[in-house]
Each structure stands twice: as C-alpha cells, then as structure tokens.
C-alpha cells in the first residue's frame, strides 16, 4: 500500500524551476531515500510536502487513518496532526528549552488543554501533562538521552541534538517521518549506528521513513527504494542496487572512482 504519493509536483522560485513535474510513491512501512546533487531540489520537495512552500502544481496524497488526503489542502502547522512529521537539515531545536520540553513540544497536538486549565491548574491538567511526560521519558530512554532530560538543548553536542530532533518527531505519534540529512556531520562509525537506529525506529514505531541523504553508505544500506533527482526532475527510481549501477546516476551524482 502506498503511504505517500507525490504527483506531478512543480515548484518555481521566480523564473527558476526548483521542482519540475516530479512524481514518486512511498510504500508504507518502507525506508525511502531521496538523493541528488546539491541544489537538485531535494529540500524543496520536503518543504513542499510539509507545506513550508506552496507548489504551483501537483498533488501530495497521504494515506492516513484509512483515508486519502491531499496535503496541499492543509496548512503547515496542521501537517503534524495528520501523522507526518519532519526534521530539518540544519538541526532546528528549541535551544533555550530543556531536552524534555523539546520533546513535549513534539506532543503539542496530543495535549488537549487551554490556557485557563493551564493557568489555574484546573482538574485534568495533571493527568494530560503526566501522560505526555511519561511518553517523552520513554522515548528519551529509547534514544539513550534520559539523563539529559533537564539540560538545555543548545548546550548539547551535535550528535545529541540530532537524536533529540528525531525524538521530538516521534513524540507527535507520526505514521511517516521525513528526515533531512540525518547523517550530516557524523563520521562513518556514527553513521553506522544511525542506520541501526533508523531500522529499529521503523520497526518499533511502525513507521514509514522518508529521507534525504548524501551519505551513500547509509542510503544504500537501509533504503528499500530510492528516487534520484537532478534539476528538480526525477532521473530514476529503484532499489539501491539498480541505482548504484545506473550510469546516469553515476555521472550526475556519484562520480567516478574514488581516485584523485
């Protein structure tokens, strides 16, 4: 079953066509990779799906809770509630908040209170808040960040910040997560650990994972299917093996041998 379908998406910036009639499908429960050179429009695709951008043409069909909806009918802040959550290329944490509070923001839509209930601590508040906190601690524990719960996010090392961003995404109880370069800035052994973690998250939380990544090690290792784009257009879609042997992809993206 298809979880997410991008159909004929086009996004222009002034005269520049950043995404050009792009279509692809993401299978439910898979790990799906989007790769391509810098400036090929990968992040633009992410931003269009998550409604930071308004694509001029196309549809983004998400299958959620048994029905099909077009994400382009929704606003940016409504997307998370539909079961789709994302991370950012340059880690976007809430730096002046604690690790735990960062997680709780992830559960924003799941805590149903209003400011009178909160301000006067009316009945029901504590229960809802505690549920969210328990869940946050569970996820932090899963990611190995439990000890850091009360520390400020921006005082954490880069690796922890990346994990935290992942944890925050999980707090919104997503069905599909979009990860923008999760391995950026990690060395090769750290990347290996990330691969394992992503597989574990997919299985543990029953998720579809859709990622943009430059680290071919990671992409080839864990992706079930990959779409390669350049100049906003799809070059090919296929399994890692098919991609690796494609001369077109070699030329546009991977480059030749590892010799200098």
């Amino acid at each position, binding site marked *: 079953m298809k979880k997410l379908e991008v159909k004929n998406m086009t996004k222009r910036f002034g005269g520049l066509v950043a995404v050009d009639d792009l279509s692809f499908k993401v299978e439910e429960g898979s790990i799906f990779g989007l790769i391509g050179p810098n400036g090929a429009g990968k*992040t633009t695709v992410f*931003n269009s799906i998550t409604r*930071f*951008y308004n694509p001029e043409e196309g549809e983004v069909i998400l299958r959620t809770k048994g029905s099909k909806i077009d994400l382009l009918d929704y606003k940016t802040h409504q997307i998370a509630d539909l079961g789709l959550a994302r991370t*950012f290329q340059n880690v976007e944490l809430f730096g002046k908040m604690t690790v735990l509070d960062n997680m709780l923001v992830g559960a924003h839509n799941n805590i149903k209170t209003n400011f009178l209930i909160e301000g006067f601590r009316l009945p029901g508040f504590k229960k809802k808040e505690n549920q969210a906190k328990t869940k946050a601690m569970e996820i932090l524990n899963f990611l190995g960040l439990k000890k850091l719960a009360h520390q400020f996010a921006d005082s954490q090392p880069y690796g922890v910040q990346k994990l935290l961003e992942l944890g925050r995404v999980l707090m919104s109880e997503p069905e599909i997560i979009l990860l923008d370069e999760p391995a950026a800035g990690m060395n090769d052994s750290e990347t290996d650990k990330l691969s394992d973690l992503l597989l574990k998250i997919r299985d543990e939380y029953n998720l579809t994972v859709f990622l943009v990544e430059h680290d071919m090690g990671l992409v080839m290792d864990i992706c079930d299917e990959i779409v390669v784009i350049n100049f906003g257009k799809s070059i090919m879609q296929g399994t890692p093996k098919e991609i690796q042997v494609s001369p077109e992809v070699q030329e546009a993206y991977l480059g030749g041998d590892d010799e200098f």
Partner: protein
Amino acid sequence: MHWQIFLQNVFGGIETGSLYALAALGVVLIYRVSDVTNFAQGEMAMFSTFVTYTIWVYSANAGFPYPYIAAFIGALIFSAIFGFLIERIFIRPTSDSSLLGKMIVTLGLILMVNGSAGAIFGTDSHYMQRAITGHIRFGNMIIRPHSFFVIGLAIVIMLVLFYMIKFTMFGVAIRATAQNDKVAKLMGVPTKKVTAFTWIMATMMGAIAGLMIAPATNVYTGMMADIHLKSFIAAVLGGFTSFVGPVIGGLMIGILDNLVGYYISTNWQTVIVYGFLIIILIFKPYGLFGEIPKKKV
C-alpha cells in the same frame, strides 16, 4: 493661489524631511554594521550640537571672521572624537551581548548623554543660525537658501555613503563585517576598526544633522526628541537595508506632515501621518526600498 500654498507646504516638508533623512542615515549606518539599534543617535547629535553651538558663540565673541565655519569644523572634529569614545567605552565592551542587550545599552546612553548635556550646558534654549541666513520671496512663496544647502548635503552624504559602501574595499569590508564579523576577521578584516570607524562616521553625520536642525528647533536638550523618532520611522519606512530608503522616507514624512497639517487637521496630524505610514509598512513590511530577506527552511 492654491497651487502656491500646496507648493509652499511641499517645499517646507522637503526641508524638514531632509533633516529627518540626515538623522536617519546615521542610524542606518550603525545598524547595518554593528547590529546596534542606536536609540541614542539623536541625543548624541544633540550633544554634538551643543558643543558646536558653544564653539560658534565663542568664536563669534572672540571676533573670529567665520564663526559658522569654525563651528562646522569644530562639529566634525568633536563628533569624530565623541563617536570614537562612545564606541570604545560603551559599545565595544558590550558587543557580545544580544541585540536586545545592545538596545538597552543605547537606552542607557540616552539617559547619560542627555543628563550630561543638561548638567554641562544647562537647560536653556539657544538660538543657532542657519548655514545660509535669510529667505527669498517669489510672489507669495518663501524659499530659504538654507533648505537647498540641507537637501544638497543630505544627497551628497547619501551618495558618498552609497559609493563607499558599494565600491571601495573598505565598503565591502563594512558589509562583510555586518553579515558575519567572525568570518570577516578570518579573512583579515580588522572588524574592530571597521566598527569604530562606522560609529565615528555616524556620529559625525549626527552632528551635521544637529547643526542643520538647530535653526528649526533652537539648541536645547530636547531638540532631537521628535526628530529622532521621525528619523527612525523614516529609516524603517524606507528600509533599513538601503541608503536611498531613509532619504525618501524622511522626505515623505516631512511633506505628509505639512499637507495633513494644512489640509486636514493639526490636532490629528501626528495620528493621521503615523497611521498612514504604519499602513504602508503593513503592505511593505521591509520598507519601500528594503531588501526582503530570504528565509531558508
């Protein structure tokens, strides 16, 4: 003679507006280079004007043949030193603080500079002459040569700034410092000197503005209050990222003020003019000539 009245109001507005523009250019320069919203720009200009006034009176009493020129030169020299000292003593030590922290430093400067001016120069109003005295009459129209001097000066300063910032190595260094002072340093730009220099320039521009404004306000500790606020609004209206913007913004405020005051109401003048400008800003949120920043997600 309705068109004459209209023209007279416009012309008066251009004169006052170019004063706002002069004052605004210094604010914009400092903001662009050191990220400081200098709320004390007006008070610093007031202080420089008091010094200039003192030089003017002193040299006139001493029988110096060109007291105004002496005062003008004195204004430039004093304000250069003044700007240097302010930057060195108050701005540089706090340059690591947040944007808001820097705002508070300049609020502190308002109190200090204004307070000191009152303590040193007293609280009386004083007369200061125009650069070119007198006025010329065309029928019912009155034109002051001083206006041309002020407008010309504003345009010259604007052009010099524009050229320097756009084309010289130092100008590129200023812009680079403004965007990312750490990397500018790594490229060999002496960013501290660049910042000090811009404060000196901006303070000198403030002093010139003060000297030009003084005939229209008298010299006293409150002389810049209204003009300073309007110069800020002019800068925002024109767009903080351009040098043409504040000039156009200043002229607009000056002219609008007079036209509303003449044709609509003097009581509601401020409300109407500011209201109109705010509506413009809502439609042009980065000012008329401001660059719209690109937001990266």
